[in-house]
């Protein structure tokens, strides 16, 4: 199953996703889709430098479903992380949509 790597930014805690080229972006739609376990492992290896440099914490890969241009996390927890609290539609990343 394809995966995306997410983390929290150390300075403000905001959820970020790893984009192509190793940048960290705030919106899931800009994230790099890693097609298989090998790609995930390689990317997680590259992220180690960002952890050591104290840019990000709580790094983890999560499952996504890709339909055309649309990326959607598979698990509810990751959906909520990618959008914001379901109870406050004006809060979190969903507010920027």
């Amino acid at each position, binding site marked *: 199953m394809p995966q995306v790597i997410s983390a*929290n930014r*150390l*300075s*403000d*805690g*905001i*959820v970020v996703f790893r984009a192509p080229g190793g940048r960290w972006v705030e919106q899931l739609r800009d994230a790099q889709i890693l097609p298989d376990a090998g790609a995930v492992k390689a990317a997680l290896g590259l992220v180690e430098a960002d952890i050591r*440099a*104290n840019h990000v*914490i*709580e790094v983890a890969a999560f499952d996504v479903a890709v339909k055309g241009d649309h990326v959607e996390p*598979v*698990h*509810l*927890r990751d959906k*909520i*992380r990618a959008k*914001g*609290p*379901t*109870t*406050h539609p*004006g*809060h*979190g990343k969903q507010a920027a949509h």
Partner: protein
Amino acid sequence: MYRYDEFDAAFVADRLNQFSDQVQRRLSGELTEEQFRIHRLMNGVYLQLHAYMLRVAIPYGALSPRQLRKLAHIARRYDKGFGHFTTRQNIQFNWPALKDIPEILGELASVEMHAIQTSGNCIRNVTADHFAGAAADEIEDPRPYAEILRQWSSIHPEFTYLPRKFKLALSGAPHDRAAIQVHDIGYQLVKNEAGETGFAVYVGGGLGRTPMVGHKIRDFLPTKDLLAYTQAIVRVYNLEGRRDNKYKARIKILVHEKGFEAMRDAVEAEFAADKSDLLALPQNEIARISAYFAPPALTERPADSQALKARRARDPAFAGFVDVNVAKHRQDGYGLVTISLKPIGGIPGDATAEQMELVAELAEKFGHDEIRVSHEQNLVLPHVALDDLPAVYDALRAQGLATANAGLISDIISCPGMDYCSLATARSIPVAQRISERFADGPRAREIGAMKIKISGCINACGHHHVGHIGILGLERKGVETYQLTLGGSGDESCTLGDITGPGFSYEDVVDAVETVVDAYMGLRASPDEDFLSAYRRVGMAPFKKALYERDSGSDI
């Protein structure tokens, strides 16, 4: 209420400097995340699903208007205009940046507040009856003792790295509104045969994945021994509590595995061995701290308020509010007003900055400058003249704060659940919202009567579901949210843990399941005076199980 002296202010300033330095060392990379985590937790900073969360201590739930205004300011400036009041009488901010937290703590220090020990494996914010100092049934005000415990436990050198978190709660009345029997230590003020005041002490209660009701370890502890006895309990726990498994590290597990009698013997031996007297509380010092909590000068008023009567007669909504949200004060002509933070369909415990400011203003105008946070996630104005209730009610109503549901079915305790919490396995707030919408705060809710629904989004039980009359535990089964129901729990002086009904219910079905339980209760209660808990204790699980599972829909596993 308690006011800082120079020493207290200097202590909080010290702690602020210490933590600011730790934040700087983390941001510069001198501290690793693993090393920093413990320091940030010790100062109430979590990393949650979306961002950091800052939990601010509100010792025993007591706030001044000035403090509540400051919390409103922080909500507006550093958060998204909200604060969330918790089951430990604290407030949480959901969106602060780590780099701003030293500044927020500086703002808090300016109003004698802090976030010290609101997390971490240490002695947490001390909680107490939110009606303390005002309730009609009180033996003695527990707040002075809560304050003494707060001070003594702050940055305690010996007890900063306990096996697990440690929670203290105090009640000054026979009716326990502070859930003391589900705390690591619970203290109940009592009188002995000689008429002296002391504490009945409970140890080893707790919720979480292994819920237990506390054991009474002392029938009567003289007040002067409060700290020495607490030290003995915490020391035995610090030395003997399990550290190999965080899920078995609370004192309740030590009491369970060691055996209550052996635990009691160990505590009494430790208490007896401590000959120093350093911690003995002299009566004059108890009196000195108690003076801070002297009751406000309430002018004498007739027991019956004509203004109240007149408004009641013409305004049923107002009458409903008074019947449900105003409790008996110990002085005639006054009431304790519960300001429900459970608007119908709203988020339990959330308050906007504007709402906080309004409550601060009402406390100044009508409430002798006192506000309380209840562990049931509501606010309380503890000293309001009955004559002023119409004005208070109108002001509350204008800010959406006049929901007449205190103690009713829509007055739901809920943890933040998966909408915020990184530990949660299911959502809890939306379940609370849907139940609230289903039953609301009208005639139906009043007919159902006293009903405590408590919802947790994971097994850690921050929503106290085990002691809910109806408890709801959100779990994840094969990637899907599942909700387990428990019935018959109670956190008061008749403390019991709820019984699991059976298989869980889906997110879609759980509200129907709750309604099924409620309907079954309505059908079987002996009279409208028999509340749900009493009825459950009389008839047991069987009729509810039958109603829930012997039908076509509702069960999904």
